[in-house]
């Protein structure tokens, strides 16, 4: 599993549940270290052990934790870079939803060895969408529910998200847009630059 993914889990646990929780998890997962390197690749098995350890430590189901991870990736100030990259997908939430088809290609453009499963958006009606998460990364659809929910807030859209079973091998997320301009949303300045 790519270090960026492991690093995301580490960052999420540290920021949300504290450093001591992370150290317990690293210990329980028998990592032999406490810091993932974002730009190295680890055995898939390592990530599974870490997630199992997080679930055991917090006594919460994995899907719930992964959803929170998705929300964290978009909404936490520490993850502003990632939020910006996602906002490049479109000017409105619906445009953003349509850009998800390209997400895995966009990701590979930035980090060539980070392969995410394909996503496919099906427009049921102008306000109803089904997002097909193709297989390749267990739990990806749970993370995506968190990401999509947080991005709706980011755009100021009011959307209802839920898991909607399977479509062949793909896991389906249903997105119902209640209002596209519900709140002001967060600002996105194309030319913002880190000092």
């Amino acid at each position, binding site marked *: 599993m790519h270090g*960026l993914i492991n690093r995301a889990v580490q960052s999420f646990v540290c920021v949300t549940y504290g450093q001591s929780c992370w150290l317990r998890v690293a210990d329980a997962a028998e990592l032999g270290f406490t810091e993932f*390197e*974002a*730009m*190295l690749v680890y055995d898939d098995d390592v990530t599974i052990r870490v997630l199992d350890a997080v679930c055991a430590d917090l006594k919460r189901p994995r899907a719930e934790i992964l959803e929170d991870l998705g929300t964290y990736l978009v909404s936490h100030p520490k993850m502003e*870079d990632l939020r*910006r*990259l996602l906002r*490049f997908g*479109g*000017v409105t939430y619906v445009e953003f939803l349509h850009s998800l088809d390209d997400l895995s290609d*966009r990701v590979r*453009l*930035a*980090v060539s060895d980070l392969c995410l499963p394909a996503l496919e958006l099906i427009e049921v009606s102008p306000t109803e969408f089904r997002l097909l998460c193709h297989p390749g990364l267990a739990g990806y659809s749970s993370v995506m529910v968190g990401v999509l929910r947080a991005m709706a807030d980011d755009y100021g859209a009011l959307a209802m998200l839920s898991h909607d079973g399977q479509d062949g091998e793909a896991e389906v997320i249903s997105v119902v847009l209640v209002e596209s301009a519900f709140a002001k949303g967060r600002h996105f*300045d*194309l*030319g*913002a*630059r880190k000092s």
Partner: protein
Amino acid sequence: MKGAGDLAGLLETLCPMFVLVDEDGRITRVGPTLQKLRPGQPMAGKDFLEVFELVRPRSVTTLSGLMSLAGAKLHLKLHGTPRTALKGLIAPLPQGKGAVINLSFGISILDAVRDYALTSADFSGTDLAIELLYLVEAKSAAMEASRSLNLRLQGAMLAAKEQAFTDMLTGLKNRRALDVLLGHLVSGNAPFALMHLDLDFFKSVNDQYGHAAGDFVLQQAARIMIEETRNDDTVARIGGDEFVIIFKGMSDEVILSSIAARLIDRLQKPMQFENNTCRVSGSIGTALSTQFSSPKVAEIMNAADLALYEAKRKGRSRHCQYSALGGLCHGDATSGVASD
């Protein structure tokens, strides 16, 4: 002029940074994004070369000259500040009715989006500007992560290197470090003195009181050598109870003798380890790089070895200079002499 109006409408959709000029080179229309670069200063009505400076090709200063550049790449700059650089392409209209000049930011896009607070809506749907901005940010983030990994790896490498050059028991330099240092000194023709020190009676401490006592004695000996030498001298442990001290820039045998005497004096003092009193001493042989016309590392080491051997032969706890060996082996330090 219905035709021109249609054309402008078309251009607004397709290339929001167009300039439409008439046959006199006067701007008749500009795209909305281009006008955004100079808010409150309508470009329409001005001469093209009044608003834009043609940077390349440099020779062209008139509109007719510009017209002849159809299809060629233009490098332009806006007059006034910010002096944003633009790329352009000119296409003359039929029947000499002026021309369309399409502009884009090129590489200045990064500054332009910030300077003019541009948004996605300012670019045409087929423009790769947004993708470019995305890539710059994504690649910068990835590069930053790689850079921080590189820094940590470099730190780990330095630590590993340091460890590779350190004798872990005593914290002194090891044989490898000594070889590197001697190589540098000799190739740089820097004068130095080399002291070869062997602990006397060390084996019996080890045999009598065990390895822990032996290790303790080695650590104490190392401490004494560090304390009796200057900061830029180098103390290395090169074998079980063998040490080499390099005195950079030193060629005074009187000073070296007094250092050797102090070392032996302190090494001879009993060392208390747990309930045992360990007694060792030191024998020292010293050679100077200046004693050789074109010194080689092996030569100087050998000379110090010979002197050490002489010190041992004379009854240990002594210091012997290579220069004092006299005709015995002076200038013939090639025969290897093993120290015990």
